[in-house]
């Protein structure tokens, strides 16, 4: 976020699970996006179906935004706990929309902030159902800041299309009553006035949605998965968009998920499985089989804090070293970690190409924070026309006809053997998880073992040429260099800007094609005066990878493992602390 921006507002909607906090957030985000604003959101929810406290953070700006600060300008309270919970992060003179009938506001809060009392519950009941509290609040919020009502009404109609006209009508009515209430009672009294503006049209989506779309465009025809938060929305998105264009199987467990995908991939279709850390633990054995049989597969692993069940709905980058070493034995793999929605889309398409070009497993590793965050993106960044489907070297029909059996693991210079699919006339395509010869039959001798092992491992060198350089940003010679990977991009970039504005010269390197490690990574560390690896984990896993694969030593780490994402402000504070400033 640069200082050129004139509008930079942070909304937070808080309530209990079951009150529709996420729905309000989602609809509001789209409403603002259609009204010409850039949006970044963050979702914070508990592992429960009813009760507790969850919130939806919505940052609105007239400039592109990639992160959410831990700061609130407008708070919408759907329950009696929201104000108390978020009081600490509210800027002075914040706007609070609440229903005093749900809870009286303390004099301290009243003194510092502007309270707009709206009878949310009464209006909801008047419309027909207390569940409409969230819709009333949406209308009331937009009325207060004088936003356009019709955009909201249109979105409500789209949102509830499947539920029928009555539900649409009631929701629109609830929103309208909320809107009219604040218009009539508080017009001209709110310090924030946000009106729709003319701007190029943007798309708005989460990173999980971007992975789902990417998989469809890449031609993923088979997905087998077991539901696991926060990964599930990937295939839910795919099914909602293209139910009749691919095959989905909800499996009995993650052992089945990965092995079913492997069976489909052996059959010649592009296959993916999705999961989180715990599910991936069950997949390890199959992940290793992908390595041995050289079956191309994509695993979308959306992390949450561990160990074990950890914090099931929250965020952490603690599975990186695990993925790097996952599976028994040694075999090559590729790890991508998207930094934003556009990259999630691009890397998913690339993941399927890499898997098939080099016959390896590719892991798309992201975490809950980005997976659930809506952001507005420029549709030009989803460059459909540029997508190439690269399936790697294929055996010719002639080859299959003239050779009695097919060498599916032929030893080649690059390590990649031309591929054929079972069911091709005259082709006999065999492979095994046991060490095998070029024909895929079980062997025991040392010489063949070495040939096959070296052939497989050579692919890591071959695929290196497709690994792109990490992104660098900021001035060449800086006092502070920040290093990040995956979902932390937005927060680190904004922190870099803020630090430079405060006179601490800072640059950054951000890695999304995480493994194998690009040589630029080591060079960046060497050039840096002081480098800090910013990551959402305790042990500094990417810092460890830098040490192991480049031999370079970053100065230190900025780590966070409380299950919450970095805010730019947090990084700035931590950098200053290390600088003694």
């Amino acid at each position, binding site marked *: 976020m640069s200082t050129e921006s004139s509008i930079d507002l942070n909304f937070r909607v808080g309530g209990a699970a079951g009150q529709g906090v996420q729905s309000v957030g989602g609809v509001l985000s789209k409403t603002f996006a*259609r009204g010409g604003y850039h949006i970044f959101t963050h979702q914070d929810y508990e592992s429960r179906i009813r009760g507790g406290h969850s919130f939806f953070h919505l940052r609105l700006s007239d400039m592109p935004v990639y992160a959410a600060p831990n700061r609130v300008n407008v708070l919408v309270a759907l329950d009696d706990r929201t104000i108390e919970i978020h009081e600490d992060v509210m800027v002075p003179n914040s706007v609070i929309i609440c229903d005093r009938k749900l809870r009286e506001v303390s004099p301290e809060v009243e003194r510092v902030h502007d309270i707009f009392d709206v009878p949310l519950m009464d209006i909801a009941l008047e419309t027909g159902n207390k569940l409409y509290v969230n819709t009333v609040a949406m209308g009331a919020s937009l009325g207060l800041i004088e936003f356009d009502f019709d955009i909201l009404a249109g979105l409500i109609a789209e949102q509830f299309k499947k539920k029928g006209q009555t539900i649409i009508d009631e929701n629109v009515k609830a929103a309208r009553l909320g809107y009219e209430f604040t218009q009539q009672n508080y017009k001209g009294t709110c310090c924030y006035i946000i009106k729709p503006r003319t701007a190029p*049209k943007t798309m*708005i*989506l989460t990173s999980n*949605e971007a992975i789902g*779309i990417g998989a*469809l465009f*890449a*031609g993923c*025809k*088979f997905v087998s998965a077991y539901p696991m938060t926060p990964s599930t929305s990937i295939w839910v998105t795919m099914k909602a*968009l*293209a139910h*009749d*264009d691919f*095959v989905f*199987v909800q*499996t*009995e*467990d993650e*052992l*089945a*998920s990965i*092995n*079913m*995908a*492997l*069976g*489909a*991939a*052996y*059959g*010649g*279709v*592009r*296959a993916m499985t999705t999961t989180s850390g715990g599910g991936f633990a069950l997949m390890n*054995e*199959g992940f290793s*089989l992908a390595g041995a*049989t050289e079956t191309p597969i994509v695993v979308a692993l959306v992390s949450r804090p561990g160990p074990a069940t950890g914090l099931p709905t929250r965020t952490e980058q603690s599975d990186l070293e695990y993925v790097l070493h996952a599976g028994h034995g040694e075999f090559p793999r590729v790890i991508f970690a998207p930094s934003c929605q556009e990259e999630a889309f691009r890397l998913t398409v690339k993941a399927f190409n890499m898997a098939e070009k080099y016959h390896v497993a590719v892991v798309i590793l992201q975490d809950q924070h980005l997976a659930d965050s809506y952001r507005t993106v420029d549709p030009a960044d989803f460059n*459909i*026309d540029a*997508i190439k489907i690269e399936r790697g070297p294929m055996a010719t029909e002639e080859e299959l006809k003239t050779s*009695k059996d097919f060498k599916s693991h032929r030893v080649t210079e690059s390590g990649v053997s031309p591929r054929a*699919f*079972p*069911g091709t*006339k*005259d082709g*006999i*395509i*065999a*492979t*095994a*998880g*046991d060490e095998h010869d070029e*024909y*895929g*039959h*079980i062997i025991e001798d040392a010489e063949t073992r070495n040939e096959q092992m070296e052939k497989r491992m050579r692919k890591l060198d071959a695929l290196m040429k497709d690994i792109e350089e990490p992104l660098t940003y900021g001035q060449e010679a800086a006092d502070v260099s920040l290093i990040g990977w995956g979902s932390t991009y937005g927060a680190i970039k904004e922190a870099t800007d803020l630090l430079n504005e405060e006179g601490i010269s800072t640059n950054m390197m951000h890695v999304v094609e995480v493994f194998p490690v690009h040589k630029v990574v080591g060079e960046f560390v060497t050039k840096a005066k002081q480098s800090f690896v910013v990551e959402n984990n305790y042990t500094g896993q990417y810092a460890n990878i830098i040490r192991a694969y480049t031999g370079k030593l970053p100065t230190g780490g900025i780590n966070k493992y409380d299950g919450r994402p970095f805010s730019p402000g947090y990084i700035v504070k931590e950098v200053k602390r290390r600088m003694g400033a």
Partner: protein
Amino acid sequence: MVTIEDYESRVKDIAWCPGCGNFPILEALKQALVELNLEPWQVAMVSGIGQSSKLPHYLRVNEYNELHGRILPAATGLSLANHELVVIGVGGDGDGYGEGGNHWINAIRRNPNMTYIVTNNQIYGLTKGQASPTTDYGMKTKDEPGGIHIPAMNPMAVAISLDCSFVARCFAGDLDFMKEILKKAINHKGFAFVDILQPCVTWNKVNTYQWYRERVYKLGDDYDPTDKFAAFQKAQEWGAQIPIGVLYLFKRPILKDDYVPLQRGTLLDLQKEHKPSQFKDLLKKFF
């Protein structure tokens, strides 16, 4: 015409013990495929881990040699990827009923179009004689000299209770009968489950060829395999009398028929036709 020579594997060094019940099973399967006039390239086998899971290496077919217990997920995926393939899974009792039990139950429920052969020797061979899920209660093994103290599972009864669409049992000592059952299984539309009683000449000194021969009997023409309760009752017979043949048949839709895209062709065909531009319009939903 397809001949038995077409199925001759390039692998000559067979890792089975002399006299192993897997030999006649391999022979019966080859003969069944030849009699069904299937070309080797039309057949894809998926196996797991254990002596019987080496079987696909010993005939000439497409093959995905999986991990221990994971035959059925991979075979299901393969059968959905290309439903024109004749998919046959093969593995042992430890692989299928132990390690892969959950997959077996769920494969029966899904009903993919494939054959699943369990070569059931009631013992673990490759790990040297431990009890398997089908080892009889009380049998003494090297590791349990006091005898196995949990009852054996009944694969026939489990499969029937789940309405498996084809449930059969054969005996490795009767090659012709085995061949005929395998032909029926391969021709069956849906999940055809065949448990083959297979003597382990090295580790199971109780359930020998002789032991089975004295007990097995073929289900007669008067037996109605579509009667679930009769089938369940038949499945309880184990001891002096062991029925072999098709125990249960249940008509139900196959997995592939649930998928709209697979009504247009194989998923592999769909894959080959894929063009990114076909999805261009779906981005509109995100504005």
